[in-house]
C-alpha cells in the first residue's frame, strides 16, 4: 500500500470509509512521520499521540459497526496552539500560558472532531499570533520544510510546516493579518481565511477581535473546501458569527466558472514585489485567460505600496492595520493579570500593580510587549483621534476600494507576500520591516473578506511561490472555484519538499 501520508484528507477519508485503510493505521503513519521529521522542522508544541490513537480506534470501531465515519472520519489533523482544547495545553507559544489547560474546546475544533477528525497535536506560532515568521514563538522557531535555514512564515507557521512536511493531513490556523495565507505561501500549501463571521471564534485566544478568523491549511483546494465546510456556521457562543447557511463548498468546486472576471489590483504590482513572484502571477493570469476568464485591471488606491528613494517601503494599509490590531491586542491581553490564570512572578510583590507588571514583564516576549504598549499608547488620551480614530476612517476607505473593485470583477488575483520565505534572523531585529512583510494580506482582514493562498510554482531557489485570491464577503465558493480552476489548469498542487522523501 502507498504511503497514507501522501494522500489528501479527502482521499484518506474515502479510503477509510471504504475499509481500504484504517484510521489507526493512518494515525500511526503520521506519528511516524512526526518522529522522523519533527527534529528538523519543530512544527509542534505538543504531540498528543495516545489520545490520537484512541480517537482513531474509535473511528475504526464505528466503521466496523456499520456507522459512517464522518466528513473527516479518521483524518489526522493539527491545531494551532491558540485554539482552546480541554485536552493537552493551550499555550499560544507564550511563557505566560506555558501550563494553561483550557476549560472548554473551541467550536471549530469541536466541529472537526464531531466530523471524525483525529487530533495529532498543537502547533507552534508567533506568540499570541503576533508575527510573520514564527520566530516570535516563546518555545522555539519552526523551520521551513523546503529549506530549514528559512522561516515557515507566520503566525500559523507550525500548522503550515506540518501540512507541507506531511506531519498531518490538514491543519487549522488563525489569520488576523495574513497568518494563514502567508505561511501557506512560504510552505507551498493551500490556506483559506474565511469571511469575518463565517467561522466561530469561540475558543480562539483573542488577538485582534475585529480581524481574527480561523481557517484551514491543506495540501490542495478540495481539502480547503472540505475543512471550511466542516468548521463554518453560526455559533451562539460567538455573537459575531453570522447566522447564514453554509454552502456545500466541495460540491461548489465543480460548478462551471464561465465568465469569471479576475481583477488585477494595479497597486500590488510594483517594484516592492519580487520579480519572480510577479512573473508567476502574470503567468497565472494567463492560465485564467486561457481557461476563458476575463482579466480586468482594478485599483485599490488605499492599499498602495510606496517605495522611497532608499528603497524603504511604506503603506497606508500597514499603518491602519497595525494601529487597529495593536489597539485591540492591548485590550484583549489585559486579561493576563497573574490572578485568574497564567504565569505569576515568583517574587514577592507589595501590591497588585507590581504583581501585574512584573508577571507580565516575565511572561510576555518582546513583540507582544511592543504591540501592547503601542496599542495602549494609540488609545490613550490625546492620541486616540490622531491614531485610532484616523485608522478606523482609513479602514473604511480601504473597504470602499474593495467594494468598487468587486463591481468590476468576481475575484482578485494578488501576491501573498513580497518575497518567498526569508532566512531565520533576517528580519527579526527590525519589527517594522517584519510588519511590511504583510502588505498584501492585511487589507483583506481590514475589509473582512475571504482570501485564499495557493501554490503558484517554485522559485529558481526551489522555494514555493504563493498567489492569493480574494472575493467579496461570503463568496468563499467563488474563491475556492477560482483556486480549483488554476490548480487543475496549471497542475501545480500537492507540492512536496525533498525532506518528505527522506
Amino acid at each position, binding site marked *: 500500500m502507498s504511503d497514507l501520508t501522501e494522500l489528501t484528507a479527502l482521499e484518506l477519508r474515502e479510503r477509510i470509509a471504504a475499509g481500504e485503510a484504517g484510521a489507526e493505521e493512518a494515525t500511526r503513519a503520521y506519528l511516524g512521520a512526526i518522529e522522523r521529521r519533527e527534529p528538523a522542522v519543530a512544527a509542534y508544541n505538543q504531540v498528543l499521540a495516545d489520545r490520537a490513537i484512541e480517537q482513531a480506534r474509535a473511528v475504526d470501531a464505528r466503521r466496523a459497526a456499520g456507522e459512517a465515519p464522518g466528513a473527516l472520519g479518521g483524518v489526522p489533523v493539527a491545531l494551532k496552539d491558540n485554539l482552546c482544547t480541554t485536552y493537552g495545553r493551550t499555550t499560544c507559544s507564550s511563557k505566560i500560558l506555558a501550563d494553561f489547560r483550557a*476549560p472548554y474546546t473551541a467550536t471549530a475544533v469541536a466541529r472537526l472532531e464531531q466530523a471524525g477528525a483525529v487530533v495529532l497535536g498543537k502547533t507552534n506560532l508567533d506568540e499570541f499570533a503576533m508575527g510573520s515568521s514564527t520566530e516570535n514563538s516563546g518555545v522555539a522557531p519552526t523551520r521551513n520544510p523546503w529549506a530549514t535555514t528559512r522561516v515557515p512564515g507566520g503566525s500559523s507557521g507550525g500548522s503550515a510546516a506540518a501540512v507541507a512536511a506531511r506531519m498531518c493531513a490538514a491543519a487549522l490556523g488563525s489569520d488576523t493579518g495574513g497568518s494563514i495565507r502567508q505561511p501557506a505561501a512560504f510552505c507551498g500549501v493551500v490556506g483559506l481565511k474565511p469571511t469575518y463571521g463565517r467561522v466561530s471564534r469561540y475558543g480562539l485566544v483573542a488577538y485582534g477581535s475585529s480581524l481574527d478568523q480561523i481557517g484551514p491549511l491543506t495540501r490542495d483546494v478540495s481539502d480547503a473546501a472540505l475543512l471550511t465546510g466542516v468548521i463554518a456556521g453560526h455559533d451562539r457562543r460567538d455573537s459575531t458569527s453570522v447566522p447564514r447557511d453554509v454552502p456545500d463548498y466541495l460540491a461548489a468546486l465543480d460548478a462551471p466558472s464561465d465568465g469569471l472576471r479576475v481583477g488585477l489590483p494595479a497597486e500590488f504590482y510594483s517594484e516592492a514585489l519580487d520579480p519572480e513572484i510577479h512573473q508567476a502571477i502574470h503567468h497565472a493570469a494567463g492560465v485564467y485567460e486561457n481557461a476563458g476568464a476575463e482579466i480586468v485591471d482594478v485599483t485599490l488606491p*488605499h492599499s498602495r505600496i510606496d517605495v522611497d528613494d532608499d528603497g524603504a517601503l511604506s503603506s497606508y494599509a500597514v499603518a491602519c492595520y497595525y*494601529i487597529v490590531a495593536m489597539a485591540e491586542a*492591548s485590550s484583549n491581553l489585559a486579561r493576563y493579570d497573574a490572578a485568574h*490564570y497564567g504565569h505569576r512572578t515568583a517574587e514577592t510583590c507589595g*501590591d497588585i500593580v507590581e504583581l501585574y*507588571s512584573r508577571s507580565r514583564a516575565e511572561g510576555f516576549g518582546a513583540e507582544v510587549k511592543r504591540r501592547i*504598549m503601542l496599542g495602549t499608547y494609540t488609545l490613550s488620551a490625546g492620541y486616540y483621534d490622531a491614531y485610532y480614530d484616523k485608522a478606523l476612517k482609513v479602514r473604511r476607505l480601504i473597504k470602499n476600494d474593495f467594494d468598487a473593485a468587486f463591481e468590476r470583477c468576481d475575484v482578485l488575483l494578488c501576491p501573498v507576500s513580497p518575497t518567498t520565505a526569508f532566512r531565520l534572523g533576517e528580519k527579526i531585529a527590525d519589527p517594522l520591516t517584519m510588519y511590511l512583510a504583510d502588505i498584501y494580506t492585511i487589507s483583506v*482582514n481590514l475589509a473582512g473578506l475571504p482570501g485564499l493562498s495557493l501554490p503558484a510554482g517554485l522559485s529558481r531557489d526551489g522555494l514555493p511561490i504563493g498567489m492569493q485570491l480574494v472575493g467579496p*464577503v461570503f463568496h468563499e465558493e467563488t474563491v475556492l472555484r477560482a483556486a480549483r480552476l488554476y490548480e487543475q489548469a496549471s497542475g501545480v498542487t500537492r507540492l512536496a519538499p525533498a525532506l518528505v522523501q527522506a
Partner: protein
Amino acid sequence: MSQTIDADRVRHIGKLSRIELSDEEVRTFRRQLAAILEHFGKLQELDTEGVEPMAHAVELHNVLADDEPGESLSPDEALANAPARDGDFFRVPKVIGDSQ
C-alpha cells in the same frame, strides 16, 4: 506627525500597559516605537473628512438571548488554572493601600 518618544514616555507607556521594563528595554523600545509611530503618521497624508469610522468589517447587530440559566464552569473548573486560590476565591496581594 513625527512623534518624539523619550525614555520617560516609554516608561509611562509601560506603566499604563502594566509591563515592567528594564533600562535596556526602554532603550530598545524607544527606538523601535519611534520608527513604528512615524510610519503610523503616514495616515495623516490622507483626507478623511466626513468618512465614517469603521470598527468592524461586517455589519454587527445586538444579539439578545433569553435570560435563562445555562451551562457554566464549576468553581473548581474556573479556579483550575489560578496561580493561587483560597477556597472558592482567586488569591492576590492586597488591592487597597498605597499603590496609585
